[in-house]
């Protein structure tokens, strides 16, 4: 039931929301998280961000995360779109949508989906700086803690 997409093209958030709720009049609310490229990191100005991923495994991991959300909450729809390749500050990297008859389900599922997407799907960010340097982004312990509050991913 979930919509899973990995794409190099810019995201059209409005179009994905419209597609999720089109002809689904039983939906009472849609929770959403939109991740965007910031323009600074550790005090250095970022000029570009490049997202690498593991084709094949990425889609499997995203589908497994969405399936978990659909098991844990009463969802009427779920969309995960992740951009890959080069992008600019202000552009959207990731879009998570969770639709439900009830807003608490929609909002909790949204938080879960982005927490797990950040820690359990094979994407890697590289930042390019205005000073000419570039660096792979380190994983954040805060992200691991946020993901861990939802428990462990069951064995496939």
């Amino acid at each position, binding site marked *: 039931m979930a919509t899973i997409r990995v794409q190099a093209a810019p995201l059209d958030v409005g179009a994905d929301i419209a597609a999720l709720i089109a002809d689904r009049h039983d939906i009472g609310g849609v929770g959403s998280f939109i*991740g965007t490229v910031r323009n600074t990191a550790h005090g250095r100005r970022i000029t570009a961000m490049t*997202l*690498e*991923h*593991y084709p*094949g*495994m990425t889609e*499997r991991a995203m589908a497994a995360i969405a399936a978990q959300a659909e098991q844990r909450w009463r969802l009427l729809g779920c969309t995960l779109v*992740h951009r890959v390749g080069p992008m600019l500050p202000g552009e959207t*990297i*990731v879009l998570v949508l969770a639709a439900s008859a009830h807003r608490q389900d929609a909002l909790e599922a949204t938080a879960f989906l*982005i927490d797990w*997407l*950040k*820690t*359990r*799907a*094979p*994407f*890697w*960010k*590289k930042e390019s700086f205005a000073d000419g340097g570039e660096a*792979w*982004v*380190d*994983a*954040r312990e805060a*992200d691991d803690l946020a993901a861990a509050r939802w428990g462990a991913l069951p064995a*496939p």
Partner: protein
Amino acid sequence: MAATLHLLYFAWLRERIGTGEEHVAMPAGVDTVAGLLAWLRGRGAGYEAAFGTAAPVRCAINQEFATHDAAVAAGDEVAFFPPVTGG
């Protein structure tokens, strides 16, 4: 062909090794991820730079996350990468 491993490297591991993908004959005596990592470290400076540091290296076997004590067998697709940073 069945007695080979399909190896994949991502992010800074790929950059240090100099390739993102290779097929290798199943190394004798290797039957876990940890064993495979030890064998890879001996393959040259790029591999040593990728695998010989304290930086954490994650693994997937046949596109599922795996721990370093997981079993590796001929025919497997084994990927190495840093902790993920998407989203």
